[in-house]
């Protein structure tokens, strides 16, 4: 080949390599961007007056005087709407059956949507479920609802080879020349006065329990559950892992037993997480009966087995990284092997071991499959520490799945799902970041 081509090949090879890396970074960005952006929406959003009402009535948060002023303000803005509706209802009453037939269904749909937007209409009895007691509490949801009120979705079926194409028609056309037609124009002009959207920072999202199946409130039980599960797993895995690592690094030679042990460790690392879940169910719950049904304890134990190989490997590396001279110095001073390990090697390897623990902690916090059958439930109170021995708990990872697929109003609570995802990702990435920083400091020190 000619030199020019060879050079070109070399250069393009480099480009492709760099391109692969860039692609990887881009996929990370693509993955994280919606999570961060929309996850932040769980914390920072524009709340409507309904949200302030809910906070005051349900939780006693906010200043009563201010909210009451706002309520009278919005009630004044809403009154014309209610009046128009009353007028139209009277018109229907008088209009006879033909009129009622023409507008009956359309009006009841409109009425339903208005009550979803603004909360129960005057004269309606107060519903039991919190989600029905208030109008839209988030301005973005209110705008979606408002859009539905303004426009009717129709479909154009002219193309026989595809499904209908959505066309939006103003809803006001349905009620042309009736007493309710001006309602749409009024809504258009005064929607902000009716809802009073205000930017708010809901930091309590992390520390509130959920109200009404995650329609409102926060994710504290899930955060706490994740916390318990991950910490519990480390409680079991760390001592086992460090002792094993000490054995492998300081005691064992190259015997057959040791190589068997190493194969076992790497096999354990390769066992699919769902198999751990089945094992946890079959062993800890059905056989050992450590708890009557799912419990945080059973989940932690299952997770402990899952992270054990990670802890062992990383701790062994950390121990091996301790300079031999330290050990030799200690030995020459007459210390026993065990004593050397405890008083010299372990303290020196501590930071390294700590990184391994932190990374494993992140891994345990994020796992879902092993806790499906052993620990996770969709609704539960935050547990006190002794209750973890016998009771199951919600956990972030499982509840992300649960809310994203099983909840009855998946779309309404998207922000909660994204908020949970962001919280979990932030938790795990922060742990990893800590580990990376610690490691960087170690290697800096090592390089002097």
């Amino acid at each position, binding site marked *: 080949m000619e030199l020019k081509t060879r050079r070109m090949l070399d250069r393009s090879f480099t480009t492709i390599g760099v391109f*692969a890396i860039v692609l990887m970074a881009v996929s990370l960005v693509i993955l994280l961007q*919606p999570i961060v952006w929309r996850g932040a929406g769980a914390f920072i959003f524009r709340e409507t007056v309904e949200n302030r009402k809910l906070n005051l009535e349900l939780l006693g948060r906010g200043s009563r005087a201010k909210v009451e002023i706002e309520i009278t303000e919005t009630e004044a803005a809403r009154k014309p709407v209610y009046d128009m509706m009353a007028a139209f209802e009277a018109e229907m009453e008088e209009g006879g059956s033909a009129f009622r037939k023409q507008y009956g269904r359309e009006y009841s749909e409109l009425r339903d949507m208005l009550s979803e937007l603004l909360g129960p209409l005057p004269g309606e009895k107060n519903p039991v479920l919190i989600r029905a007691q208030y109008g839209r509490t988030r301005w973005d949801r209110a705008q979606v609802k408002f859009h539905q009120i303004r426009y009717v979705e129709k479909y154009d079926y002219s193309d026989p080879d595809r499904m209908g194409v959505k066309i939006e028609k103003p809803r006001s056309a349905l009620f042309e020349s009736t007493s309710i037609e001006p309602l749409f124009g009024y809504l258009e002009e005064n929607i902000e006065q009716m809802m009073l959207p205000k930017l708010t920072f809901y930091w309590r999202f992390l520390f509130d329990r959920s109200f009404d199946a995650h329609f409102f409130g926060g994710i504290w039980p899930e955060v706490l559950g994740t916390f318990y599960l991950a910490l519990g797993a480390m409680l079991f895995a760390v001592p086992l892992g460090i002792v094993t690592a000490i054995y492998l690094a300081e005691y064992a030679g190259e015997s057959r037993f040791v190589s068997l042990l190493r194969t076992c460790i790497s096999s354990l690392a390769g066992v699919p997480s769902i198999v751990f*879940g089945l094992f946890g169910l079959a062993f800890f719950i059905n056989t050992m009966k450590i708890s009557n049904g799912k419990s945080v304890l059973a989940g932690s134990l299952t997770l402990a087995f899952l992270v054990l190989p990670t802890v062992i490997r990383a701790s062994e590396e950390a121990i091996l990284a301790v300079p031999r001279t330290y050990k030799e110095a200690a030995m020459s001073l007459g210390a026993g092997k065990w004593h050397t390990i405890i008083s010299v090697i372990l303290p020196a390897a501590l930071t390294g071991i700590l990184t391994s623990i932190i990374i494993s902690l992140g891994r345990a916090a994020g796992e879902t*499959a092993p806790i499906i059958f052993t620990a996770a439930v969709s609704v539960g109170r935050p547990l006190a520490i002794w209750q973890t021995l016998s009771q199951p708990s919600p956990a972030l990872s499982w509840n992300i799945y649960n809310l994203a697929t099983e909840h009855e109003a998946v779309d309404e609570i998207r922000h909660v799902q994204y908020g949970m995802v962001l919280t979990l990702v932030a938790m795990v990435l922060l742990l990893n970041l800590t580990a990376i920083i610690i490691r960087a400091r170690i290697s800096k020190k090592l390089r002097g």
Partner: protein
Amino acid sequence: MNDRIYEHTESDLRSRLLMSRGTRRHRRLGALAGDTVLIVIASSSLIALLFIFYFIIKDAIPFFQIEGVREFFTSTRWYPSREDAEFGALSILVGSTLVTTGAVVVAVPMGVLAALCLSDILPFSMRQVVKPVIEMLAAIPSVVYGFFALVVFAPLLQEKGGSLLSVGALIVLVPVSIIGVGVASDLIGARFSEGSRGVARIASAAVLSIAVILVLYQLNRFLGGLRIVSGTNALNASIILGIMALPTVVSVSEDALNAVGRELREGSYALGATRAETLLRVVIPAAKSGILAAVILGVMRAVGETMVVWMASGNAARIPQPIFNYLEPIRTLTATIAGDMGEADHVTGSARYHVLFAMAFCLLVFAFVSNFVSEMILRRSRKQLG
């Protein structure tokens, strides 16, 4: 190395150690007992693995006793809930294989290239930036990937599936074909005599590029016209799984590439090879067993993953028609276990409970065997290089 790292001064060490002199004999006895305890604790992972095997096999065997082995591996009829239940898992096995293959196709070329880049191309300072990116990809929990696949990626595939695919194909194929055209025209040119070589090269390059452009255009039109009916399908799961398996592939193959010594590389450079040639002809062949092990580990990660496939693969127990049709939904072993465990009432001793353990057993055997193979490969390559 620097002694400042571990800030124990010698006197510090001595003062701690001298205290123990008096009780040395006592300690020796203790050490013996300690050693025994140590070995027992160190065997915990061995014991754990044995327990896992025991408990999975214990509940898997009844299935094969009740239903036999043949139906499970040869039938595609998966109707576990009926009175006349059928437990044909072939389509599920095929589904697992399909997504894994897809994930490998995504992860391996990208992963190996990225590893090459990390070990040989990027300067040290850049490497320090890239490595955390890979670690972050590895650290993100699988349920987050699943959530992304279901909530963001699946609707995107449905709405803009065709154009996404064609853009993806272009991203991959354009650089490949540019290089291909360059090499081919060079080779063709070499066949001509010295004088006409330049003209021949340009002519062949022109002809080839037109051909390639035509092919790409046609392909692009075909892909762009594709309508993806359902966004949760084998393709979605494969791509996301591929990205999840990437960090494993990158870090293991980077280790393998780093293990190839400087001498080999420098020897190759000394003979006048370019960097690309050195990497392709010298470094990769030398590291190939390590890279193979990386691929196997990536495969293991993809096969064993649950949440992504459960949320993004569509869970239809059917072999796609034709079999390489990645746009159809498929069902995998892990998702079946996660999804069906709910109804699998082991109280009534049904085959339905045990069939899930049979699947878990398949997964376990696969993981065990491939882990063993990759260990063997790695050990051998270490011996060769060491």
